[in-house]
């Protein structure tokens, strides 16, 4: 193997790479936020006794989870303009990623809702709360704190999925790495540095989220 490493071009583009990483984090955060709202609604619907709410929610989860994210991105960005629904690159990515995340979060929330002891609801009824009050101030907060570890795993997964934004030329880390690769032919350097940045970012996020989880865990529920 006859390859001479030269990281100079990486250092010259260091701020561009870091900016790309930041953009990826922004995409993942925005998608998580919107996806959590979609997922929460879908979770309630999928547990509803009414078939016209339950069936669409279940179909949504099944379809999104079994379709490649890249195809979903292309449907949003290249397909939907045919129906007059046109989004700029970054927004198209956030929109797609949020719908994608919503399906996975729906599953997490649904199992969280099922796991809530019946007694909590009965306690709420006993002190005279309405159904809406019980859901919004007892069930959902308890469920959210219980599924927090699943939520943070989902966030890390979403952050890795933001790499696909490069396919529609959103200037995040993967896009910049590919650009350095094609412009300078520093193949090894660009991909090794991009991979390393992703790994480090994932581990920092994971460590940070563990702290948050410990902070927010309901006392006495975690081993």
């Amino acid at each position, binding site marked *: 193997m006859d390859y001479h490493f030269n990281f100079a071009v990486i250092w010259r583009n260091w701020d561009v790479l870091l900016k790309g990483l930041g953009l990826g984090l922004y995409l993942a955060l925005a998608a998580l936020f919107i996806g959590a709202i979609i997922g929460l609604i879908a979770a309630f619907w999928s547990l509803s006794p009414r078939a016209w709410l339950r069936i669409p929610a279940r179909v949504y989860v099944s379809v999104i989870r*079994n379709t490649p994210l890249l195809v979903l991105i292309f449907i949003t960005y290249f397909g939907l303009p045919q129906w007059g629904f046109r989004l700029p690159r970054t927004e198209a990515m956030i929109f797609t990623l949020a719908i994608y995340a919503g399906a996975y979060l729906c599953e997490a929330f649904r199992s969280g809702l099922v796991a809530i002891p019946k007694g909590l609801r009965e306690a709420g009824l006993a002190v005279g709360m309405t159904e809406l009050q019980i859901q919004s101030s007892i069930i959902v907060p308890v469920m959210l704190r219980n599924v927090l570890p699943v939520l943070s795993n989902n966030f890390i997964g979403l952050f890795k999925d933001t790499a696909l934004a490069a396919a529609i030329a959103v200037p995040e880390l*993967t896009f910049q790495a590919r650009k350095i690769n094609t412009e300078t032919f520093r193949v090894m350097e660009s991909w090794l540095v991009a991979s390393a940045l992703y790994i480090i970012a*994932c581990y920092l996020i994971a460590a940070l989220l563990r702290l948050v989880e410990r902070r927010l865990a309901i006392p006495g529920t975690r081993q």
Partner: protein
Amino acid sequence: MNWSLFIEELGKSQENLLIAFGVSSLSAIASIILGTILGIIVGLALTYGHVINRILARLYTDIIRGVPLFVLIMAIFYIQAASGFGMTAFQAGTLALAIFCASHVAENLRGALQAIPKGQMEAAQSVGLTFLQCFFSVLLPQALRQMLPAWVNTAIEIVKGTTLLSVIGVAELLLATQRVISRTYLSLEFYLFVGLVFYILNFTIEQIGRAVERRLARHG
């Protein structure tokens, strides 16, 4: 939406799309088989290996699981080309999928093996089974049953992941469809079509996985 034109164009390009579907399937099957074998080896090293092997296996899984699959595919494709391995895009992409698959299989196997109570190993050894006998007739059957749902999920991820090979120029289903689109401009119709094909494929895998799971479930 122009469905009559879509049907007409679909008919014209059905041969190319079928070949591309074959490429996608071949890549998925090869990488799942290769990845599962490699994953079992790494998983065993993670669970029972000596310190050095365990550290190497841990590094492998942690590094691969920290990198997006999309980046892994491009990194392996471009790096092997630059260092003169001369693989085709299909080979490099399938290798990347297999490496990704192996890291997930390894973690699942480790989790499944460690979830089996220690007493079983002790019981098996106390009736005179060797480690290998105990592993193959006591631990492994239970571990395989336990990791089946996660393995099916990994398989679905791999099938979805084959679409990523389009970016390194493998003529799989997504790239073949994009070529049809660039000729016909029926982007929404054809992208929805690819999505539907993958949905049906993965839904089938999911259902088969559930049926096998029910079949293997222990009673009581």
